[in-house]
């Protein structure tokens, strides 16, 4: 029983960390630019497909990861400069519709180029199979995933807490007008943060192929989870998103293990309950 619990916990944490990696960008975008970006899932999907395309050309999986991060970040910058910035002051409905429109276009493009079926991922052999440690069976890939996400989170925390740029981000999230008044280039901060967020999403999409699968409906299928992590954790809060994503991951996996009949029901019910209890999220700043 305890063995099962640890196994479930581990799987849940792996799943949750992946969600966190992707949702983090969304959280910062919503907190900083007050932009409801439903196309975030599409950026993650783009990262996944880019990884597949690179692997088809013979690039090893691990090498694709930084490339995907950079490429998606670049795509994010371009999108932000040309399209997103026009809608920062727009009503949320407009932002929702715009991002849904982008998502539809992304899904259609993915279907056209790659076809509607799942994409396989070629993991290096040392990432397949399981470690047997203290009587527990831990999947190697999941371990790798968790380690990577921890690494990224530590780096992010360092960036946000210890660097000047991080201070600028924090200032802009708290009060954009005052920050601009102090001479902080809020525009640049926005662009850079958006790039970082989408880059992380793309990376998460590539890492998630093995766990979550990759097909053109990925952008919408998991959007609910990303939005949930952000809404429950509180937009703009990294800690909150992390907590929410982990809770979500563990609950989803545990729910499917102990009550498989309930399926996805649990997640949605949980979402409604949490949102009613915490309308601003765990660590919420803005609604």
């Amino acid at each position, binding site marked *: 029983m305890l063995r099962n619990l640890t196994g479930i916990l581990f799987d849940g944490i792996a799943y949750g960390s992946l969600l966190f990696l992707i949702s983090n960008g969304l959280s910062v975008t*919503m907190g900083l630019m007050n932009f*409801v970006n439903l196309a975030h899932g599409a950026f993650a999907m783009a990262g996944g497909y880019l990884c597949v395309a690179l692997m088809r050309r013979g690039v090893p999986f691990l090498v694709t990861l930084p490339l995907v991060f950079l490429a998606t970040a670049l795509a994010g910058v371009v999108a932000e400069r040309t*399209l997103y910035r*026009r*809608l920062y002051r*727009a009503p*949320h*409905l*407009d932002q*929702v*519709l*715009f991002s*849904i*429109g*982008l*998502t*539809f*276009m*992304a*899904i*259609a*493009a993915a*279907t*056209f180029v790659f076809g509607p079926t799942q994409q396989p991922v070629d993991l290096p052999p040392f990432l397949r199979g399981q470690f047997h440690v203290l009587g527990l069976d831990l999947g190697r890939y999941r371990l790798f995933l968790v380690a990577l996400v921890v690494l990224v989170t530590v780096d992010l925390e360092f960036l946000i807490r210890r660097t000047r740029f991080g201070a600028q981000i924090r200032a802009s999230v708290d009060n954009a007008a005052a920050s601009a008044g102090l001479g902080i280039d809020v525009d640049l901060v926005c662009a850079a943060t958006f790039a970082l967020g989408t880059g992380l999403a793309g990376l998460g999409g590539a890492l998630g192929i093995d766990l979550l699968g990759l097909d053109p409906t990925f952008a*919408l299928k998991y959007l*609910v989870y990303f*939005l*949930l992590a*952000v*809404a429950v954790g509180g*937009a703009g809060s990294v800690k909150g998103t992390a907590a929410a994503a982990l809770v979500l991951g563990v609950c989803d996996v545990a729910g499917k293990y102990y009550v498989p*009949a*309930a*399926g*996805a*029901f649990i997640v*949605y*019910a949980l*979402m*409604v309950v949490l*949102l*009613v209890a915490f*309308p*601003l999220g765990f660590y919420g700043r*803005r*609604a």
Partner: protein
Amino acid sequence: MSAEAAEPLAGAAAAEPAAALPHDRWRPLEVAFWLLPLPCYFLFPGYLVLASQIFITGLFAVSLDLILGYAGIVSLGHSAFFGVGAYTAGLLARHGWGEPLSGLAAAAAAAAAVGFLVSFLVVRGGDLARLMVTLGIGQLFFEAANKAYDVTGGVDGLNDVRMWRILGLFDFDLQGRTAFLYSLAVLVACFALVRRVVASPFGLSLRAIRDGGKRMPALGAPVRRRLVAAFTLGAAMAGVAGALLAQTTQFVGIDVLGFNRSAELLIVVVLGGAGRLYGALLGAAIFMLAQSYLSGINPVYWQFWLGLLLVVIVLFARGGLLGGARRVLALWASARRASR
């Protein structure tokens, strides 16, 4: 003159040179609009089913416009009420009570009840929370219907929906003639009701709540109660639309719930122009016609162009088709005045 200053206000009544109080009389253009379907009945005998589905989508869109365009609640889960109405009517008919009009009433009541309960979750929180809650509710209902496949038929759908004659006279025929006239009649009746509501003081207060933020509570208006009422009415209308679909197609598929229907509906309303009621109808007609024509050619392209259309509308054509038309008319009117 103050009339020129009044022009850019979105959703305001068309700028007349002399100040006119808003009234509820049916304008000639409206009457002409509602007479349009009748010749279609005779000219396009093979397209009656498509037409009745346009009417149903139109009603559904109007119900969302009430919530979204007038009350300002962004909802991604409106299909939940559509589905509740559809399954209520479908289950009633399947289990022996196939009378259409009472089925509609039962569906409206069920959807209104659900809408009433949900509204309490929705009136709190800001846009993001509302989005998430409505999305979650929509998905919850979908999963519940899927789980309860003994009752709902799940993914296979609910069939054996046997309808009795409407008013004891009209049978639902294969060609869709009865379906056409029935859904048109229901649409007209419901539309007239909604139109009355939005032109009433209640409707005006909704618009004020949508636009005003903190002003309405400061005036002492019962904001929450108004929003609950609007949301419930919108849910009831959506339920009627769902019941119509179930009755005219004698089938309920599980996709009456679910995200795609909610998202498409949002697109329909915005395409035509939110907050204008007729925008919802226009959006429904154009969307359904385009979809039936274009997705026959290639559904992948359809999704792409739909997405592109959305992006373009939001960036360049806020207010949708009717908003754009109104702006063009206003420009033309001001050009005429200037040339005098």
